C-alpha cells in the first residue's frame, strides 16, 4: 500500500466529495495511519464547529436593501421562516383533495379556502388569450374603483413591476365562496399580472371577517402554487404556475406593497 494519501483525497473525504467506494478505500488507509486519521477528524470537526458558530446568521433579521431605480426592495423579516412555517401549516390542507371534486364544504364546515377559489379562477382565466380580464390596466383607476365598490372596501393593486410582472387588468368573479361582511356575501375580485414571457399571475381578493386566522399559507396543485393570507379587510391568494420559492418572493412583494 502506498504510504501517503493525496491531500486532495483527504479533503474530499472530509467535505463529502467521494463515492462510497472511494470512502471505503480512504477509511481502510486511515485505519492503518492514525495520524492521518486524526488530521481528517480534526478537519471534519472544524466544519462542524463553523456551522454551529455561523448557521444562526442565516435566520437573523437584517435591514439590507437593494436599490432598484428609485424603488427599494428590502427583506425586513426572515421570509424563509414565514414560508417554511406556512408550508408546514399548509401541508396536507386539502387543495388537492378539494380540487378533485369535493367542492361543497360539509354543512357547518369552515368556509371554503380562498386558495381553492383562486386556483379555480386562475385555471379558468389565465389561458384566455383575448379576454383574460374584463377591465384592462389602461383603466386601472376605473377598475379599482369598480372592484372596491363591489367588495365594499378600498382595493389596491400592488405593483410587481420590479419582478417584471405588469398589471394586465381585473375582473369580478361570481364566487360561490365569496367574501363576507357579517351575513352579507360579496363577490371576489381577480387581478391578473403578466411578464414579458407571457407568464401570468392571479391575485384573488375577497372580504374576510375580522378574527380570521392571518397566517401565511401555501398550497400546490400540479404545477400551480398558491400563497394565501389575510391582511386587513381582505383575504388574498396569489396564484402562479411557479414553484414555491419563486412564488414566495412574489407573495412577499405583494405583502410589502400592501403594507408600505
Amino acid at each position, binding site marked *: 500500500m502506498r504510504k501517503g494519501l493525496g491531500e486532495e483525497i483527504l479533503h474530499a473525504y472530509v467535505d463529502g466529495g467521494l463515492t462510497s467506494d472511494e470512502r471505503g478505500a480512504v477509511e481502510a488507509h486511515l485505519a492503518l495511519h492514525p495520524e492521518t486519521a486524526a488530521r481528517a477528524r480534526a478537519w471534519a470537526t472544524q466544519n462542524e464547529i463553523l456551522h454551529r458558530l455561523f448557521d444562526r446568521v442565516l435566520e*437573523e433579521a437584517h435591514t439590507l436593501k437593494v436599490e432598484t431605480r428609485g424603488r427599494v426592495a428590502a427583506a425586513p423579516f426572515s421570509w424563509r421562516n414565514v414560508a417554511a412555517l406556512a408550508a408546514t401549516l399548509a401541508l396536507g390542507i386539502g387543495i388537492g383533495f378539494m380540487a378533485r371534486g369535493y367542492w361543497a364544504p360539509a354543512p357547518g364546515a369552515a368556509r371554503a379556502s380562498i386558495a381553492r377559489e383562486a386556483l379555480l379562477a386562475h385555471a379558468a382565466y389565465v389561458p384566455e388569450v383575448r379576454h383574460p380580464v374584463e377591465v384592462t390596466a389602461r383603466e386601472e383607476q376605473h377598475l379599482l374603483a369598480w372592484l372596491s365598490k363591489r367588495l365594499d372596501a378600498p382595493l389596491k393593486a400592488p405593483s410587481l413591476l420590479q419582478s417584471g410582472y405588469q398589471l394586465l387588468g381585473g375582473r369580478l368573479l361570481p364566487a360561490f365562496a365569496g367574501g363576507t361582511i357579517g351575513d352579507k356575501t360579496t363577490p371576489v375580485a381577480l387581478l391578473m399580472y403578466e411578464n414579458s414571457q407571457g407568464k401570468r399571475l392571479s391575485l384573488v381578493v375577497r372580504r374576510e371577517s375580522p378574527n380570521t386566522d392571518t397566517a401565511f399559507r401555501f398550497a400546490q396543485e400540479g404545477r400551480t402554487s398558491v400563497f394565501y393570507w389575510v391582511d386587513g379587510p381582505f383575504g388574498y391568494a396569489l396564484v402562479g404556475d411557479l414553484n414555491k420559492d419563486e412564488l414566495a418572493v412574489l407573495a412577499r412583494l405583494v405583502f410589502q406593497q400592501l403594507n408600505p
Partner: protein
Amino acid sequence: MRQGHWVPTGFTVEQLLAQIPRLRRYARALTGSREAADDLVQDALERAWTKRALWRPDSNLRAWLFAVMHNVFVNGVKRARPMASLDALNEEGNAEPVASSASAETDATLREMSSALAQLPVEQRQVVLLVGLEQLTYAEAAEVLEIPIGTVMSRLSRGRDRLRQLLDEGSDGQNGLRRVK
C-alpha cells in the same frame, strides 16, 4: 411575443434578496463582525444589481454573488478594518451562539474557533470558509477567488492545519478565551 414590457435582465431583485442570508453568513465568518459583514454584503448587493447583466443565467447565482462580494472585499482597501477580535463578537450580543442546551464547553469551543479564525491569514480563511462552511466545490471556490484550483487545495491544507493547531493551543492553555461574559 408580447413587446413593450420592462424586461428584467440577469436575475430578479427577489432572487438577489433570497441570497442575502448566505452572503451574510460568509461575510460574518470572514470579517468576524456584524457591522463589517453587513457593510460588505450591502456593497456587494449594490454592485451585483448594477452588474446583473453580466451574470450568465445558466450559471450558479450564489457562486457568482460570492465572487462579486470577494471583489468588493479585495477592493475595499479604504474601508479595510482589522478582523474583529473576540471581544467585538461578544460586544455585539452574539455571545449566545447555540441553543440554551449549549454546555460551557461547547461555548468555549465556539469562542476558540472565532479566535482561531481571526488569527488565520485571510487567504486561508476564505478557502476554509467557502469550502467548509459554504460547501462550495473546490472548482467553485477557485472561480470565486480567481485562483487556480491547486492553490485552493494548498491554502485549504495550510488553513485547516493552522486552525487545528490554534484550536489545540486554545483548549490547552489558559489564555482567557473561556471568559464568560
